[in-house]
């Protein structure tokens, strides 16, 4: 794709972005707009389910996500969109896995189509992308608008689980992801390497076993601190919430969404 060509994506916000991560949305949309990447929010969308069912016979759990993919399909037919973009990695994970399951198992698609008689058939092929992929794929555009230098930042990147596992839908090498580090390095941001960047934060145990989350996050955070980080950057609203159980205002380490960090670089604080 030519650098100057227009880039247009459909946008699936998901429940959490619209309630618990409004600042993540605001900074992400601002950043993409400055990069000349256009977004169109889906007119209607449905709960993806956050974590996909791992059973092979749980077709019902694909319904919500498939409805969203069908909404995207309708809009893609009318407009020239490069895919369906998500900010929330859990949404990315679920939609991508539904695509994968339905591609590999036409019988499941058949059952779903039959069941959703009021909807058109899902023809597969809606390209689901996460904002990190779009940012990494358009580093040139970012470089163009990055006017500031963030010399005081030493960034530990925290990926979490859902962008990298299962490996079939990973945005990078799940054992040693570097996509965000490479992005930041090319923008001259100092990176801190540490061993826990793909370690689970404890996820939904925040509701029932908060101590598990606190233990997990302490391990992640203290490792990043020991290696000299003063920023830990995340892309998931649940990771962010869980990290903030330990990382508090005024600490040596600050938790920051990747979009927020990049917005600093383009001089829009």
């Amino acid at each position: 794709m030519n650098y100057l060509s227009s880039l247009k994506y459909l946008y699936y916000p998901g429940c959490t972005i619209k309630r618990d991560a409004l600042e993540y949305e605001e900074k992400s949309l601002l950043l993409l707009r400055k990069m000349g990447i256009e977004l169109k929010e889906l007119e209607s969308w449905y709960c993806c389910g956050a974590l996909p069912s791992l059973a092979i016979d749980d077709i019902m759990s694909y319904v919500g996500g498939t409805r969203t993919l069908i909404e995207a399909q309708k809009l893609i037919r009318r407009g020239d969109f490069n895919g369906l973009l998500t900010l929330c990695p859990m949404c990315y994970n679920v939609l991508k896995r539904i695509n994968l399951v339905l591609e590999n198992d036409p019988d499941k698609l058949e059952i779903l189509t039959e069941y959703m008689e009021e909807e058109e058939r899902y023809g597969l092929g809606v390209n689901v992308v996460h904002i990190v992929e779009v940012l990494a794929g358009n580093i040139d555009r970012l470089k163009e608008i990055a006017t500031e230098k963030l010399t005081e930042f030493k960034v530990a990147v925290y990926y979490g689980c859902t962008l990298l596992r299962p490996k079939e839908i990973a945005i990078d090498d799940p054992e040693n992801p570097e996509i965000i580090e490479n992005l930041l390095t090319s923008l001259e941001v100092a990176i801190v390497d540490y061993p826990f960047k793909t370690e689970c934060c404890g996820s939904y145990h925040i509701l029932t076993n908060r101590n598990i989350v606190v233990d997990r996050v302490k391990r992640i955070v203290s490792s990043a601190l020991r290696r000299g980080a003063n920023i830990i950057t995340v892309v998931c609203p649940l990771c962010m919430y869980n990290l903030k159980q330990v990382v508090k205002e005024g600490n040596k380490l600050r938790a920051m969404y990747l979009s927020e960090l990049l917005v600093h670089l383009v001089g829009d604080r």
Partner: protein
Amino acid sequence: MKEIVRKIISISGRNPFLCYQCGLCSAVCPVVEYMDTPPHKVVKLIQLGGEELKRIKSIWYCISCMACVDRCPRNVGPGILFEAFRLLTLRRGIDKVDLGTLENIDKVPTIAVVALARKTTG
């Protein structure tokens, strides 16, 4: 084969008998220290199909992070067997967590509540 084992296999689509007990799943599990039975041992118990299977609580600590599934050298995918195991209970309409009693349900990100509900209520 015991009915419970047959069911776990048919829901998960995975073959627990391929496991050769390397223990990698337990090594990479982020919540293994809270479990009563580590993942590799759960797989062994499934192979044996004994009564103690019904008493395992580990499956409710697993958060489907997929760390063990991706790394399993025998493609057994303990996390996927765990899901099938959970569904044996949930598909009878039994809830493992009462959503109505969660203190911070209105404060945590919505995805946490959705994920918990999908994995622990039937």
